[in-house]
């Protein structure tokens, strides 16, 4: 049953050094506030899973928290490359980073298999693609009925998944809408699921019956963090802060500037600071 907790406690209770953790969000509803809280609490040796690691994984990798990244597109959406991740992969700074790289189809199937309690995902993929040569976790199975050779990858089963969502009701059911991405599968694939939300409402009685809802018993903890997805967006609440994504390209390009920015904007701040960051983006949502 979902517990309503302050974000600092939700992170402390559910994340441990050495965990495999997913902070998911497919461009939309990225759990930035939860990632920043994890950075403040200084976790180590994490295996970071995400289809589209963007700014928050660049930040965690740059802060030396990750030993491995499992991903399918490591870019700054709309801008270009991830410079802290590149520094780790190309130069081993601040330390070497192991990578397990997939395609989107593979990661989406792997999360779905994880949510379905399966050990692996099977799909028609990687045909002619060189990732299959460099990633030993990309294998194949032969269909017992048709003989077709299909790709197989291990399911993704994080110790804990963090997602951001629009709202919870007082019982702790969670609503996700708009670009729902992989939020539901990532939450259900994990042993523990922590959700940050924009707001809590009395009930979901007046909503469409087919909206994406995670029942309260499928969620471990909920923290109310308005603006908690910034600089990503929350459909219906505030727009994507494109300027921050562009700015990040310059901040992350320089090791010292990166550390200074992290000190000032993450280490010395708290989850309460997110609401003000989206104020100017609310009228364009």
């Amino acid at each position, binding site marked *: 049953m979902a517990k309503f907790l302050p974000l600092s406690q939700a992170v402390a209770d559910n994340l441990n050094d050495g965990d495999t953790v997913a902070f998911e969000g*497919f*461009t*939309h509803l990225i759990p930035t506030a939860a990632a920043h809280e994890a950075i403040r609490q200084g976790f180590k040796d994490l295996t970071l899973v995400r289809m*589209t690691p*963007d700014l928050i994984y660049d930040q965690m990798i740059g802060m030396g928290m990750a030993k491995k990244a499992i*991903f*399918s*597109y*490591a*870019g*700054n*959406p*709309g*801008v*270009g*490359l*991830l410079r802290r*991740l*590149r520094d780790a*992969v*190309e130069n081993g700074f601040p330390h070497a980073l192991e990578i397990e*790289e997939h*395609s*989107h*189809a593979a990661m*989406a*199937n792997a*999360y*779905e298999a994880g949510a379905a309690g399966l050990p692996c995902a099977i*799909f*028609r*993929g*990687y*045909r*002619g*693609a*060189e*990732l299959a040569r*460099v990633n030993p976790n990309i294998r194949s199975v032969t269909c017992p009925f048709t003989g*077709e*050779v299909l790709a197989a990858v291990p399911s993704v089963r994080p110790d804990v998944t963090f997602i951001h969502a629009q709202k919870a009701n007082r019982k702790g059911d969670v609503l996700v809408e*708009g*670009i*729902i*991405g*992989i939020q*539901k*599968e990532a939450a259900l694939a994990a042993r523990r699921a922590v959700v940050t939300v924009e707001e809590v409402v009395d009930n979901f009685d007046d909503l469409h019956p087919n909206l*994406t809802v995670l029942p309260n018993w499928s969620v471990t903890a909920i923290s109310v963090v308005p603006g908690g997805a910034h600089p990503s*967006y929350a*459909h219906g609440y505030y*727009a*994507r*802060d*494109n*300027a921050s*994504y*562009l700015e990040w390209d310059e901040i992350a390009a320089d090791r010292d500037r990166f550390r200074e920015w992290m000190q000032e904007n993450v280490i010395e701040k708290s989850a309460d600071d997110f609401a003000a960051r989206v104020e100017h983006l609310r009228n*364009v*949502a």
Partner: protein
Amino acid sequence: MSELGFTPDEMMTIAASRALKGDDVCFVGIGAPSAACNVARLTHAPEITLIYESGTIGTAPDVLPLSIGDGELCDTAVTTVSVPEMFRYWLQGGRISIGFLGAAQLDKFGNINTTVIGDYAHPKTRLPGGGGAPEIATSSREIYITMAQSKRGMVDKIDFYTSFGHGDGGDHRQRLGIDTKGPTLLVTDLAIWKPDPDTKEFTVVSLHPGVTRDVVQESCGWTVKFADTLEETPEPTELELKTLRDLKARTDAAHKGEAVGAKRGSKDG
């Protein structure tokens, strides 16, 4: 802008847009294709279905999205599905007629690299990676590619096969059991290319107005083959140019409104 009244980049986008038809279901991939797909929708192909990998099906954005998951894609879509559903039911299920891809590195057989420059384990440059492209390249019924020409981008040998085109050429796709057509069209800022029916090597079939064979060769890293009868790409019509420029102006204004300095074009994640 030359005395022609349009830029090579505008010619590329418009030539690419013309290849799309109203009954196409087009998976708009990472990179440059977004503008071409939306120009097609706003001119000759209003019924086209545009799909972005964030799960938006039948989207009709008023401005070009900065990322593949912008809210407007969802607001204007016929429906928005989860990412697993997108890749399983719609792409793997064989419902996409055209996968429209860009490329960091491309070879003459339409193989694409967006993963690394240099060795995979010790790369000189770590690029973002494949995203949806490896399966878009093999599950879409055919593939269109668009990119501006450069010797760095169009190379004799790519460093990494992120997305399979025609491999070593000929029947390489069939030998791997891939039953889709693969790359059937390449539109650059200088020319339109189609694969040779037998070798599958991209061959220039049409030069854009004012472009010579030498200019095409000078900005391409492999020895270019030209078709026996070389056509000239019809120059952009007034409607095409106006549509593209209005779209870009709306996009710039929108990105400026919410993000000072958001000047770059659409490069997706």
